[in-house]
């Protein structure tokens, strides 16, 4: 499965959780800390690295504070390697 990562503009986030609702991988969580506006911003659970870079969170975000990156392979792997 594709791998991705998102960068969240923490100060812009209002903690509305619409991205959490939209995320099919369920890898977004609300932080315990507050940002300068007094909201709990969302953050990406990175330890499992399950984000696929599908950008549904960014499509649902009302404050346009999510930037999405996706890893794309430069070359296809040899069949002998993928079989493992």
């Amino acid at each position, binding site marked *: 499965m594709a791998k991705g990562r998102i960068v969240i503009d923490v100060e812009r986030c*209002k903690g509305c*959780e*619409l991205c959490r609702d939209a995320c099919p991988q369920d890898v977004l969580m609300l932080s315990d800390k507050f940002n300068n506006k007094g*909201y709990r911003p969302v953050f990406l659970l990175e330890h499992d690295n399950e984000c696929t870079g599908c950008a549904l969170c960014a499509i649902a975000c009302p404050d*346009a504070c999510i*930037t999405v*990156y996706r890893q*794309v392979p*430069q070359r296809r792997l040899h069949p*002998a390697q993928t079989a493992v």
Partner: protein
Amino acid sequence: MTALAFQRSEKKILKPIEKLVYERPHSLDENHTHYCPGCTHGIAHRLIAEVLDELGLQEKAILVAPVGCAVLAYNYFDVDGAEAAHGRAPAMATGLKRVNPDSVVFTYQGDGDLASIGIAEVIHTAVRGENITVIFINNAIYGMTGGQMAPTTIPGQVTTSSPNGRDTAQTGYPMQIAELLSGLPGTAYSVRRSLHDTRHIIQAKKAIRTAFEAQLQELGFSIVELLSSCPTNWGMTPIKALDWARDNMIPQYPLGDYKVVDELKKKRRNR
């Protein structure tokens, strides 16, 4: 494959590169919005900015801001803008478009601004077939003033000025703007979309793009009605508000294309 050939091919395997999939549209300003958390005004702003970026209209676009929650919209778009008197955004847009025919003029109006005080302006703008685009945000309530009943409030909905629910015997029925304006000959494009989930947000963006294309082709008046949420005045969490919009607003305001002129249909088929 021999071992040597495999070693060679293995050497050529490079690390995956990181591709930018989504970033904040350039037509949006850096200012933080004043909207409540989870308000779909922000989504509508972002979709318009994305369309302006894709069509390369940032330098040509003129926004006419309404009175309502979106009264400060000119702070959030990095395009030229003007602020109209309450409900008069289509009239102001008419003047701006007539003196700047090369520019792309759009208004961004809520239901209090467009459907209540400004209904005469929008109808006559459509009747004249003015070549402007109207983005109409329908959230079934007056947001800025504290959640009073709007012309678009659905029957039975509790608001601060209808605490027992909207009584149609006393206050009439909700106003169906997309259907109403589709009956006028000057209208080129009149559709209703919703912003309650990602699939519908993507469809809404396509509709906004078509509305701007209608203006670029000088086909006439184009309007996109967007069903929207108001978590604060509906008294719900943002996610519950979107569910309420899906369950209660869409039956009252069916999504669909109410008028699409043939020129736009042809273009869609060719795409």
